[in-house]
């Protein structure tokens, strides 16, 4: 990962007390913006990225040289229209695209943190992000939007800062990470830590990364982002550049080759320790528990207008878990809309070209903005 000079950063001076008890200060927060902030500063949308996302939402990612992860959704005239809105996205703390994370130097030891980096939570991530709104002088966002782990940040954001956003769009997410979610994350973490090169997290000093472990983690996770039907239609039992089975352990099937490819490109852009930290943050997420088991209380001080979106084939964050958020909001008479979008593309639907989703998100934002 080079070209780090393309990364915009602020240094947060204000101490941030983390859920684990440690306090951090003078830490970097890397971000990117799209569109322009209007004079009234009322057109800002905070986009929250998912586990392996980063601040480069749309256009060309200057680090990976690939399209931004939400290029289908964010851009001129798109669902989140950068002709209208000022879009901000911040690399989560614990991440590896410039924000304070385990690949940074520990000022105390002058060595790379590795697993000495404090365990962070979604709450910590959100509490760090608010500093960038202050940096831009934004008193109230027009919206905070995110899918998957981004949606968890949306929920935590409204809970922590009830006056700071007019609308909120949690997409394909949950208010409480399920046992199944935790299980898949643990599988990924075990794959990384079982890689000999991981070296108890000190791989940077050896200059050999735990690429195999990280790739397996990505492959396993990638399966959870797709639906059975989607996989079957795209790959079925099609063979990879061969006419017959080879009776060996090469990638005979296209799906194997595809997953291997997904794993191999992932290790070029993502840090293994960041993967451990961010999946942990997701696993620790249980917003209702922060309010004595009553999720409604997380939102009771907010007048924010919510729109919750789920997808029919998403079995990682299924509709019912999204609906639980809606139920908690309705129980306190909050302003909440909800739709389940029909799609065969699984959890990844929120990243892909799913016309009903793109149209509905655009309609919600544009209609809410002009009111």
């Amino acid at each position, binding site marked *: 990962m080079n070209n780090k000079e393309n990364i915009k950063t602020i240094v947060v001076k204000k101490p941030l007390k983390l859920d684990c008890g440690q306090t951090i200060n003078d830490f970097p927060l890397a971000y990117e913006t799209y569109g322009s902030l209007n004079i009234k500063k009322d057109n800002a949308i905070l986009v929250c990225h998912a586990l392996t996302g980063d601040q480069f939402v749309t256009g060309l990612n200057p680090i990976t040289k690939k399209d931004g992860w939400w290029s289908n959704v964010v851009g001129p005239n798109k669902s989140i229209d950068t002709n209208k809105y000022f879009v901000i996205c911040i690399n989560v703390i614990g991440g590896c695209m410039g924000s304070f994370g385990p690949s940074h130097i520990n000022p105390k030891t002058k060595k790379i943190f590795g697993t000495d980096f404090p365990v962070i939570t979604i709450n910590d991530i959100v509490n760090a992000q608010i500093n960038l709104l202050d940096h831009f002088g934004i008193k109230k966002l027009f919206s905070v939007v995110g899918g998957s782990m981004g949606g968890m940040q949306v929920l935590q954001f409204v809970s922590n800062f009830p006056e700071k956003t007019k609308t909120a769009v949690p997409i394909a997410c949950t208010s409480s990470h399920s046992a199944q979610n935790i299980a898949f994350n643990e599988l990924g973490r075990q794959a990384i830590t079982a890689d000999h090169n991981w070296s108890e997290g000190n791989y940077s000093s050896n200059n050999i990364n735990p690429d195999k472990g990280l790739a397996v983690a990505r492959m396993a996770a990638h399966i959870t982002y797709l639906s059975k039907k989607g996989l079957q239609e795209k790959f079925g039992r099609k063979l990879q550049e061969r006419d017959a089975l080879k009776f060996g352990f090469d990638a005979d099937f296209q799906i194997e080759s595809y997953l291997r490819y997904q794993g191999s490109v992932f290790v070029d852009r993502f840090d293994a320790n960041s993967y451990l930290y961010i999946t942990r943050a997701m696993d620790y997420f249980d917003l209702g528990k922060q309010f004595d088991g009553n999720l409604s209380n997380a939102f009771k001080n907010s007048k924010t207008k919510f729109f919750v979106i789920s997808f029919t084939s998403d079995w990682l964050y299924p509709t019912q878990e999204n609906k639980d958020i809606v139920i908690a909001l309705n129980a306190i008479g909050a302003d909440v809309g909800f739709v389940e979008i029909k799609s065969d593309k699984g959890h990844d639907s929120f990243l892909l070209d799913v016309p009903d989703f793109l149209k*509905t998100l655009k309609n919600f934002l544009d209609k*809410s903005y002009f009111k």
Partner: protein
Amino acid sequence: MLMKPEYKIISDIINENSRVLDVGCDDGTLMEFLKLNKDVDIRGIEISKEKVQICVSKGLTVIEGNAELDLKQFPNKSFDYVVLGQTLQAFLNPEIVIKELLRVGKKAVVTIPNFAHWKVRLNLLLKGTMPVTKTLPNEWYNTPNLHMCTIKDFFKFSEKIDFKIFKSLALINENVSTINNSNLFTKNLFAELGIFLIEKSYEN
């Protein structure tokens, strides 16, 4: 999209600035009409994904859901009015739905297509087939209606499950008139639609 004649009547029943839930809000036409005319704070619940998306495109707050399952998430008396337009007959259990409406809303406005309308009666009597009329356009095999009822049935229903009918109106050729005990026989014969404002009889 389509302004139904009863929308104006429903709007006249509802007080300004009240909190309203439209159950089975369809494409949001009534919601928009009530917002415009009565400045209400209105939410909708709709089972069809396509229609929810149309409502969102109109800037309406709607949740995708099934009234039989999803009304339970709303607290007691969280709305001044709950509106149920021409769908009571389509539920598996109308009794539970009415009870839920009266729990969630302080009052409920319920409209029913009247199966005792003379054309329906005549249709069955003369043709001997299931009636197909303007208000009941479907054939027996594709109708969403499971529990057709008449205006008279609805009165009997109010006694059986104990709710109060505050207002009962008949829609006859787009004209509205009041139904009472003395004219029930004729209204039940001539009204295409019955419109009722109801409330729970007692606190329980």
